[in-house]
Structure formats: C-alpha cells, structure tokens
C-alpha cells in the first residue's frame, strides 16, 4: 500500500517545507481566502493605539472584562450571520429577531410568570420558527433572501412593539435569566475553560499533523504548527490571568466561544458544513452533486434566527431589561460588519467561523476604546464605517485579482 503513496513529483508537485507553507498561504490570499492573520494584526494595532491614546486604560483587567461582556450578544448574532453569508445569502432580520425573541422571553418571564428556563426555551423556539418561515419563503418562492429578510426586519420590529405592549420596557428579575450574562468564572473553573479552548485550537492541529504524517500525506512543517500552538496557548493563558485579576470569565463569553468552536467544527469537519461551503461556492454544482440545496438553506436560516434569538437573550440578560429599541440600531450592522471584517466574503463560500469572534472583537474594541476616549457617537459610527469599508474593499480587490489573474 505504501508504494501507491510514494512521492511522485511528476504527478503531484506538493510543495513542502516552510517556503511551501508561505507559497500556499500566498496562493490562498490570492484566491480570496484571506484567513485570520490580517484581523489578528488589526486587533493588535487597535489595542496598541487605544492603549496609548487612553493613557493605559484600555488594556486593564477591568476594561477587558467589560469588553468580553459587550462582545457576547453581538458575537452570538454574528455566528448565525457567518453561516448565512457563507451560503451567499443575507439575513437582515437578525437584529430585530434578537430583540423580539428577548421581548418574548421577558414578557413570558415577568408578565406571565413562566420560569426562566422555560421562557428562554420558548423564545429560542420562536426564533427557530421565524428562521424556518423565512427560509422556506426564500426557497419555495425563489425570492432573494435580501427581500424576504428585509420584510422580516420590518415585520418583526412590529412584532417587538406588539409583544412589549403598552409598557414599553420590561425589567428582568428572574435569577436564571440574569445569570446567563451576569455569572463569572474565576480560578480553577476559569482555567479549566481555557484549557479546553487550548486543546481544541492549539493541540487539535498537532494531532491532525501526526495523523496525516502517519498516513503518508504531506504536512506543514512541524515548527509552523508548534509556533502557532505555543502562540495561541500563551495568549489564552495570558488572557485568563488578566481576566481573573478582575471579575473573571463571563458565562456569556463562554457561550460565545463555545458556539464558535462548535460551529467551526461543523463547518470544517462535518458533512453539513461542507455542504454550506459547496452551496456558497457553486450552488448548481452542489445540486448536481446530490446536495439537498434547499433543505440546507432552510436549516441555515433557522440556525441564523436561533443564534439571533440567543444573542438577544444574552443582551437582555446583561442589560437586565428589554425595551422597544432592543435589537435595533447598529446591532444588525455590527454583526454583519464583524463577519466581514473577520474575512467572510459577502459573495459566499469563503471565510471561517472565527470571523464571528475576531470580527466582533474588532468592532467592540473600537466602540469600547472610543468610549474610553469620550468620543461622540458620531465619530464612533464614522470610524466603524471606515473600518468596515476598508475590509470589504480588501475582499473585493482580492476577488477581482483572482478573477482576472486566474491562470
């Protein structure tokens, strides 16, 4: 068996060694798959700039814990949007769905006296139903998702107002609901969570490396994988130590990272995830390959609304209230911007789930940093818009260079 796998340079000229990795990375960059490196560099720049401008107030344990709290809700909505964008579709209703589902939970809990977990479950169910409705509408009538979810954006905004009724604002008191965002893990519990993260992100690739090596396949140089693993491990432990100096790791942040890890695994390693990429890349090819394109689309819309609802619940839990502006304003646009900044192509098929986490980190860091500098919200919006525009421009330029430079 080993003879069939012997290296034959005439047939497969696989590039090996460190230079091979660089060449392959350049090739991927060229083909429009920008990966996570640019956004990590961007985060480092943003962190440094704000640290200097704010006289050292940005990178303090207190402010970083605040940053994680600010990230949880928007990041979770972004997880769903990444899935939709990978399909080459869009979900404009995610923001208001998050608000309406939070309102459903609040009204059930406060006005109807439903126990917290049940209220949360019913709100999630409502989110899933909305997603199913929108997904089926798109696929059955062949209407672009932009239009269907735009209608949803308007309609569910009305739904939010109707659910909240005359009171306008519902204050949350249920201990289960307030715990979702308000609970913190410190000490051993926090480090255990970080250890799990390290196992998935840093140790996982090392195991894959060994499996590929023993199967006789080409592997990236060990040094490359080890450096990456060490960097991630060092950063994660540093983050845990810093957060632990203040209140610790919030449950909301854990939910977000957990969702990202689970969905990242689904996208990269599970057939369903491969179907999403295939449809986003070439829906007709996917259909001819026997992939149930319409069913996958509906399921992704359900997931998108489900994550939106969950994000809305986390947001409400943090604010301890739901009001008429829940899920409105910049919520949707920030979630889309986060995905795009994280390298997800608006044209479908390119990007990774880590965009939801890293992109949200960029957006919230900018927002948080400018709050520290007491800049007006006018400037905040302008800067966020500028960051979004420049990342989309990078995406578009890379795509064009690929289209014209295809050899």
């Amino acid at each position: 068996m080993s003879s069939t796998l012997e290296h034959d340079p005439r047939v497969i000229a696989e590039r090996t060694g460190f230079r091979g990795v660089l060449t392959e990375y350049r090739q991927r960059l060229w083909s429009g798959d920008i990966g996570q490196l640019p956004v990590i560099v961007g985060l480092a720049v943003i962190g440094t700039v704000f640290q200097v401008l704010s006289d050292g107030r940005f990178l303090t344990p207190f402010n970083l814990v605040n940053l994680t709290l600010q990230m949880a809700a928007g990041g979770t909505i972004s997880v769903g949007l990444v899935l939709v964008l990978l399909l080459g579709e869009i979900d404009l209703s995610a923001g208001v769905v998050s608000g309406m589902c939070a309102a459903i939970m609040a009204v059930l809990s406060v006005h109807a006296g439903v126990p917290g977990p049940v209220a949360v479950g019913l709100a999630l169910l409502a989110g899933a139903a909305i997603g199913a409705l929108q997904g089926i509408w798109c696929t059955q009538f062949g209407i672009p998702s932009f239009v269907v979810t735009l209608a949803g954006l308007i309609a569910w905004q009305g739904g939010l107002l109707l659910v909240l009724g005359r009171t306008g604002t519902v204050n949350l008191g249920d201990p289960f609901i307030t715990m979702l965002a308000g609970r913190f893990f410190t000490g051993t519990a926090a480090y255990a969570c970080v250890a799990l993260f390290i196992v998935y992100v840093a140790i996982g690739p090392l195991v894959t490396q060994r499996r590929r090596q023993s199967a006789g396949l080409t592997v990236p140089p060990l040094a490359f994988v080890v450096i990456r693993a060490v960097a991630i491990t060092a950063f994660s432990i540093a983050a845990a130590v810093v957060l632990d100096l203040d209140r610790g790791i919030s449950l909301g942040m854990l939910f977000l990272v957990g969702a990202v890890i689970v969905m990242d695994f689904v996208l990269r390693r599970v057939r369903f995830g491969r179907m999403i990429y295939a449809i986003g890349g070439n829906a007709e090819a996917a259909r001819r390959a026997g992939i149930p394109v319409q069913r996958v689309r509906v399921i992704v819309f359900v997931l998108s609304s489900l994550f939106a609802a969950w994000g809305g619940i986390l947001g409400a839990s943090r604010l301890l209230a739901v009001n008429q502006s829940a899920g409105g304003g910049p919520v949707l646009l920030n979630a889309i911007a986060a995905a795009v900044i994280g390298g997800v192509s608006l044209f479908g098929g390119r990007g990774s789930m880590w965009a939801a986490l890293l992109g949200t980190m960029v957006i919230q860091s900018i927002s948080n940093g400018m709050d520290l500098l007491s800049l007006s919200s006018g400037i905040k919006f302008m800067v966020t818009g500028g960051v979004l525009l420049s990342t989309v421009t990078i995406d578009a330029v890379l795509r064009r260079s690929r289209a014209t430079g295809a050899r």
Partner: protein
Amino acid sequence: MVAAAAAARTPLLELRGISKRFGAVQALTDVQFNVFDSEVVALVGDNGAGKSTLIKIISGIYRTDHGSIRWQGGEVSITTPNDSSALGIATVYQDLALCDNLDVVANLFLGHELAKPRGPLGVIDEVTMERRAVEVLRRLSVKIPSVRIPIASLSGGQRQSVAVARSVMSDSKVVLLDEPTAALGMAQTHEVLELIKQLRGQGLGVVLISHNLANVYAVADRITVLRLGRWVGTYQAARTSREQLIAFMTGAVPGSGEVPVVSEGAIGEHPGDR
C-alpha cells in the same frame, strides 16, 4: 481480439430506437447508440444534430419518448439524474460543475464525503479521502500542484481533469464528456485527451461529444454520427477517413443505415497504443 468473442459481449449501455420530440421539433428519431467497457465512442454531428439531447437522455435530464435503454443487458428506465448516476453513469458537464472555493479533495468527493457516522452530520475522514484522491489522480496521471489548493487556482485543463477524475471516484462505469476540450489550449487539450485514454485503460466506457475531429480521431475507437436528429451510422475510427466522416455529418453521402451498431472487431480492441 477475436471477432466472435467480441460479438458475444454485452454493451455497458445500449440505446435502441430513441425518439424525442419538443413541441413541433422532432429532436431525435429512432437513434441507436451503444458503448462497451474499455472503449471511447465519439458522438459527432453538426449543430442541431441531437448530440446534446441524446446525452441529456442518458444522463436523465430528459426522458425519451420512444425506445429502450439497456444497462449491462437489462432494460432500465432513466427518468432523473439520480437514476443515471445510480446505474454508474457520470456526466461531466461543459460548465464543469466544480466549487471554486473548495480544494481538489473536497471537489472529488463533493456530495459523497467519507464520514462517520454516515449522513449529513457525519465527521469527514479527510485523511482517507486525501489518500484516495491522490491515488486516483496518480493513476490517471493528472498533474496538479497540490490536492489541497482551491479549484480557483487551477488552470482550465487541470479543472477539467479534476471534473473527469470525479467520475472515477464515484466508481462510474460510463463517463459522458460534453465538449471537454472546447475552452482549452493545445497543451491542456492534450492533457484531457490523455486522461480520456487513461479512463479507457481503467476499463470505463467513455462517450465523447466534440466538434473537433482531430480530438475525436486522437482517442475514439468508434464514432457515432447523428444528422438532423437521425442516426446516420456508427463507424470504426480506424477504418473511416475524415472526408467520409464529414460527408456523413453533412449529408453529402446518405446515411448508410446498414452499418451495424456493433461493428465487428471494434469492440474489445485497445487501440490506445496506436
């Protein structure tokens, strides 16, 4: 090969008396066609001769109005693309049907990923998939820089080769190629023609549609000529000159219906070395 032994063999795929009508247009009338294993059959004819219609009937996109389809000697009905691929017929479309954003391995296994447990929630076994992909590409002598780069960064010929190799991955017995070299340069065309010979060497039956008679003569064992939706005849490539073939295609020489569908001697030969 002995003619008698060859005549005793059953074709992999056999179409008899196929007719197809679209409204006022009789696209195909009483067409005969067959393909054996380890054989390349070219399907030629002028524009509108019915080549594409015939291919679409075989691949299950259209249903035939009259006539019978036999697969390995047994009568079958092909009404959907799934029927066709379930039998072991792979169609490589002109527009390729690859996902640009996925790598070569993912495209070779698209829709048929090896996963545990089975089903859409199974975890993909990338290692086994990559090993098989490398094996198949090597067996077919397909030259690509790496099996882990996206299709987008391959040349036209390499993409076509990946699309053709996919039919081998799915254990198909008959491969339909619709103008596989239409958009390719000379070197890439040569690559794809070599691949077609490799497929024949692996025991597959290949059906090739091409306007380019030089390509047809480079690989085909037999040539089926259609004209205005009618079957003109099936000829052995080695015994038919290009002038004769053009005459049949243009109708300058009337269709010689006497030419047997299974011309003796052609079947079972391996003229790949000529």
